[in-house]
């Protein structure tokens, strides 16, 4: 007898009430838990709360996975460091990219499992790197009989020297050059825009002006990606407080409303077997997000799109519907459209390319700053009300749509 029930998406019951960032930089030589606690205390205070109010805790990826400096502290370590009493807790590396931890927190709050969730993401990849250069996944091998063997998905890449995400993503980039006529000059706009905005962000790791000539002269990492197409391993922690919207009227700063989350994954979850290698999971995550909201891509006033590699931002511009498939090159051409005063201001704090590799959460932090109107010199004009945030690349993607008032 009952018809289709149009329930309100659960995530709409949540707000981001507080944000906090630790010191951010290269080779800080501080521990991950030290940076995390610093960011957490700032976020809790920013929300107008005390640690006694925090009853939820979440992170990505949790329990030590990946290369040194990648994982950050576990939720038990952070719970104990802050002596939190929790009703809900969650850490994990699988799901809709790094932002999965924030999405999980939104759903926990919506379901009544917690009222105020501290969500954090911490990296110490710059310090962990030591004096040497950036390492690929799988490390440097070691030589001789001691070279380890590899199982799981890495076995399909490492034997061929496709050791880093830079290689896997370079394949995406080269395909886009071939299929859509993308040029290095167009791709450069993502890096140049990031550097321009980083110049207005005193916490950014790379702030010196960069020209197109500088970009084109940079050394190659894996063609067609050069040094400036790759983000910079950094140290830093970012924390946000996800609260129930009932707290909105009491929050210390403008509460930022969660409008929709993007969690879809339809293609094969693999770097080399995904059906359309020019889009991959970003396509599915963004599509699922737009199904959960009345808002349209044209409503977005500021975009914070994942730029672990410049080409991923191009993929996201299309996946999010800001331009048609294959059209992101012409879309960013010249850079005016994505600049602070353009029709779609992009990665306004310098993204990861110049702001530092805070692994997705830096972009979320900046979206909240912009929607609050706290961007200072880099504030997007005319009171932006809707922000799109995305995390991830290749077969891993998640996204969120945030608004400055309930929508």
């Amino acid at each position, binding site marked *: 007898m009952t018809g289709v029930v149009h329930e309100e998406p659960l995530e709409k019951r949540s707000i981001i009430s507080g944000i906090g960032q630790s010191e951010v930089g290269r080779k800080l030589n501080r521990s991950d838990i030290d940076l995390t606690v610093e960011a957490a205390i700032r976020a809790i205070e920013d929300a107008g709360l005390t640690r006694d109010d925090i009853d939820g805790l979440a992170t990505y990826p949790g329990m030590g996975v990946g290369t040194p400096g990648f994982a950050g502290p576990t939720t038990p370590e952070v719970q104990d460091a802050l002596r939190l009493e929790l009703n809900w807790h969650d850490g994990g590396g699988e799901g809709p990219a790094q932002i999965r931890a924030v999405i999980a927190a939104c759903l926990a709050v919506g379901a009544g499992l917690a009222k105020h969730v501290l969500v954090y993401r911490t990296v110490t990849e710059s310090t962990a790197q030591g004096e040497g*250069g*950036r*390492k*690929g996944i*799988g490390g*440097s*091998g070691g*030589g001789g009989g001691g*070279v*380890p*063997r*590899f*199982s799981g998905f890495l*076995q*399909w*890449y*490492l*034997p*061929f*020297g*496709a*050791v*880093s995400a*830079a*290689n*896997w993503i*370079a*394949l*995406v*980039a*080269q*395909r886009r050059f*071939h299929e859509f006529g993308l040029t290095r000059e167009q791709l450069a706009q993502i890096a140049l825009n990031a550097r321009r905005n980083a110049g207005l962000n005193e916490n950014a790791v790379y702030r010196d002006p960069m020209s197109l000539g500088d970009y084109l002269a940079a*050394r*190659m*990492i*894996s*063609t*067609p*990606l050069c040094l400036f197409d790759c983000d910079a391993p950094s140290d830093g922690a970012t924390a946000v407080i996800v609260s129930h919207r009932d707290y909105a009227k009491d929050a210390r700063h403008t509460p930022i409303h969660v409008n929709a989350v993007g969690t879809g994954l339809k293609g094969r979850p693999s*770097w*080399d*077997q995904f*059906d359309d*290698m020019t889009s991959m999971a970003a396509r599915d995550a963004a599509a699922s997000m737009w199904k959960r909201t009345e808002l349209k891509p044209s409503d977005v006033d500021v975009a914070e799109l994942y730029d672990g590699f410049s080409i991923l931002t191009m993929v996201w511009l299309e996946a999010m519907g800001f331009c048609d498939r294959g059209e992101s090159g012409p879309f960013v051409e010249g850079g005016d459209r994505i600049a602070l005063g353009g029709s779609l201001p992009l990665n306004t704090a310098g993204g990861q390319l110049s702001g530092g590799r805070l692994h997705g959460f830096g972009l979320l932090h900046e979206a909240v700053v912009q929607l609050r109107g706290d961007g200072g010199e880099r504030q997007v004009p005319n009171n932006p009300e809707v922000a799109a945030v995305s995390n991830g690349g290749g077969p891993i993607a998640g996204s969120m749509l945030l608004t400055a008032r309930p929508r």
Partner: protein
Amino acid sequence: MIADGPSIRLLPRLDLDNEFFWTSGADGRLRFLRCRACESLVHPPAPRCPYCLAGYLSPEPVSGRGILESFTVNYQQWIPGSERYIVGLVSMIEQSDVRLTTNIVGADPKDVEIGMEVEVVFEHQDDVYLPLFRPVERSAK
């Protein structure tokens, strides 16, 4: 100078599921699992056919020919001592959604282009035969 691959090959750990694949080149043939029910090629190895969920999969030789879907010339010294090498993504002629990440060998980067036809050659390392691909000679087409 362009190399066939990195200075050190990080090799797969052989197990019950992948051993046939990584040792297939011992007789010069590339093999994938084929479903006896729907005839699909399945890669990476899976317990059942993911297309029809039938359980009858067994390794079967393929032509070893494919199409280059994308490539990159690696410069970064992820593995110390490596010269530049070409990483390619190759789809199989028999079934285009079966793809291998591999090295493109026997070709200068300037002659490598997406869409070109390539064929398998094996590099023997320890107990593993790595499937690499080289351009198909025009006269051989």
